[in-house]
């Protein structure tokens, strides 16, 4: 059979930031921003539980809710996100718990990371690999991703809140964060 040369049909992207970005560091006095969505009530419950813990540790907390990403609403989302990122010191971005919501979680997390903020994306276990893949293809392979169990949204609130509580310190580890009082005491 004849052999010959064929042209490669693929396109590749070369640039990448493999660094996870800056650690969140000591959280006391810092402004922590949660990116939430309109899909996952479990993420609302967990982010609220984490927010309570962060406030108790001396941080301030704010939320931004992502909506539709096309049309005028999409433009409004872009503007709101840009403004939100100016008001915070640390970003926690979720929830990567489906295909499109993982891609948009990672995309918004990359936007935050590119703004220089210590940033952590939050994914459920079934979407962990995908989140890293999308981050790599988005040019930020080092993006921090904290992983919650899956399924999550299918559980009742008490179970979800308990999961959130059990993941609080592991989250801080992913973020490179410290609660000042705990570490000072140590």
């Amino acid at each position, binding site marked *: *059979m*004849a*052999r*010959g*040369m*064929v*042209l*490669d*049909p*693929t*396109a*590749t*992207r070369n640039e990448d930031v493999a660094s996870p970005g800056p650690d969140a560091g000591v959280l006391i006095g810092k402004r922590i921003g949660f990116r939430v969505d*309109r*899909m996952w*009530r479990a993420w609302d419950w967990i982010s609220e539980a984490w927010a309570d813990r962060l406030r108790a540790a001396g941080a301030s907390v704010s939320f931004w809710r992502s*909506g*539709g*990403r*096309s*049309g*005028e*609403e*999409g*433009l409004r989302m872009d503007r709101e996100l840009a403004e939100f990122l100016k008001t915070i010191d640390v970003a926690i971005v979720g929830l990567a718990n*489906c*295909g*499109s919501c*993982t*891609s*948009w979680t990672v*995309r918004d997390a990359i936007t935050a990371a590119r703004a220089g903020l210590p940033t952590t994306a939050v994914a459920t276990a079934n*979407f962990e690999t*995908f989140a890293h*893949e*999308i981050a790599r*293809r*988005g*040019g930020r392979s080092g993006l921090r991703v904290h992983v919650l169990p899956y399924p999550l949204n299918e559980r009742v609130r008490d179970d979800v809140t308990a999961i959130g509580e059990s993941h609080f310190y592991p989250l801080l580890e992913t973020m490179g964060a410290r609660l000042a009082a705990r570490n000072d005491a140590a």
Partner: protein
Amino acid sequence: MTIELIKPGAGRIAPAPRPLIRRDCGPAGCEVDWLASRRHEADLDVDAFTAFALESGWGDGLPLVPPTDTRVRAFLAKNDRYPDEVIACFPPMQTECTVEKIAINAVMAGAQPESLELLIAALTSIADPDFELYGVNTTTAPVYPAFVVNGPIRSEQGIPFGYGCLGGVATRAAAIGRAIRLILRNVAGQVPGVTSQTTFGSPGRIAGVVTGEWEERSPWAPLAERRGVAGNAVTSFGAMGTLNVIDTTSHRARDFLEMIGKSLAYPGCNGFSGAVPFAEMLVAINPICAEIVGREMPDLEDVQQCLWQFASVDASQLQSLHRDQLEQQGRIRADGRIYLTPEPKDMLVFVCGGLGGLHATGFHSFGTSLAQTRAIASPIPADPAGERAR
């Protein structure tokens, strides 16, 4: 919260291909005609190449035509574009899609050189930020871009609009659709289980849907013209699949539209999901039904209004968890109903299909992916002095 209305994102930077060029720099070709893609040595037998392409991650499982220099150059030589022209950047890879990459994938799919401008118009349409290809390419949903072609190009390129036009009739449209699918795989990087989380996928993700509108049998203006583009044009729609509606009983326009509208309104479609802020709906009406409806409703807005009214569900029929979420989002209206699309204008209608009639087809939307319409450029007429042939 209140109902989000669908408004195009004016001011977004949408890709705009450059005007066509006349390449008259001589028989040896222009310097910019050099093809930049990496070369791979391969067996050029179709079976062997198909196996090689699958192994390399380029294939869709069907036989592929080896994209040799000769074939790709021949494809480009019949067109008026430089191969290094960037047509769009596609997520999730955010890589540049050049004319060269389109030509290579089109050759592999078996598409004809004459299809290049249709391919470019289709690809630029889905690259518009309002199409939300980022979500479309990565979602767990089975969504894929479906394309409706208007204008004389339908006949010139054999785009079907009669019997079996959405799939099954043997035309060149299948290769055009397949070329787009290969570009989404090889350039955009959409790979199931890797960058696409699609749970089931869809038959529409193999060769897509590329259909014409049977404009000559439609009582209304062509779809693209109603969307601001007359003549040769393509409209893309993020379709979740096709839903068939049969009606062997109705006589009057309103009765047909009631059957179609009610059939579109099933609770589990994205348009009724609390996770999706809004959705459009694309409806294909067969020519026989269109004639009956058009006699009573010559104004398409009346058709859209009627379809919209019936494409709704009574909120009390939903489970409380779902209803509560939609209520919090302000999507239950004063009449206690939830409507599939925010407004009647979001019910997009076109005419196609065989003369057996009886059926309508609904294309439910992914949600935030908004339909886009683009003009298809016409090739530059041959130079009478034979300038291009030299």
